[in-house]
């Protein structure tokens, strides 16, 4: 499947781009993260501490063990600091 993967704040800065299309067979978010980390050091730097990150699937907050079946958009970002 092809996923639209988005990055925000320092995750975006470490990876060096705001979004990309990823062709993957990953079953869960955690599997996708493992695939990305295996690619290049910049992904490893961004995903070094998963507990410091949040993920949204199709614009809804989700957990890292959530399945990717049927998902089109995955977003990774640090904890929000709005308000």
């Amino acid at each position, binding site marked *: 499947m092809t996923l639209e993967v988005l990055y925000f704040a320092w995750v975006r800065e470490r990876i060096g781009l705001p979004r990309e299309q990823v062709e993957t067979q990953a079953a869960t978010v955690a599997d996708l993260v493992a695939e990305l980390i295996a690619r290049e050091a910049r992904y490893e730097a961004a995903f070094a501490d998963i507990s410091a990150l949040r993920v949204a699937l199709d*614009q809804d*907050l989700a957990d890292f063990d959530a399945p990717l079946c049927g998902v089109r958009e995955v977003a990774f*970002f640090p904890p929000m*600091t*709005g*308000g």
Partner: protein
Amino acid sequence: MRVSVQAEAFDLGTELAGFGSAGSTGAVVTFTGVVRDETGTLEALEIEHYAGMTTRAITEIAQKAQARWDLSDVLVIHRYGVLGVGAPIMMVATASAHRAAAFEAAEYLMDYLKSRAPFWKKEVRSEGAQWVAAKHADQDALDRW
């Protein structure tokens, strides 16, 4: 209910024209967040957001507040982009028959916007720029609801 995610500045008085105009409104509470600079070194605050998600996330938070308190009106405005010291960042307003509901709903909205709406702040200073870290206190604030 009105939710706006925008780059433009807003004026509290203008935004509140007609707000909570139902005869049942006895109390209106507003909160405005302002770019603060206690050390005198802040050049700007940059606010990044997840455009596809922000309005939707805020609307869900506002709906939860409406389900929990008897509110005659709710307004949330949140800006993104580059803001200077003293500039308004965001505001919430709640209208209800009684003051307790209006206060509680405004605090609830703020607590959830802080931790659940996809905005990220970066402080730009002469010595460099730094992403604002999320506070444990903000996360803990959700536990009271």
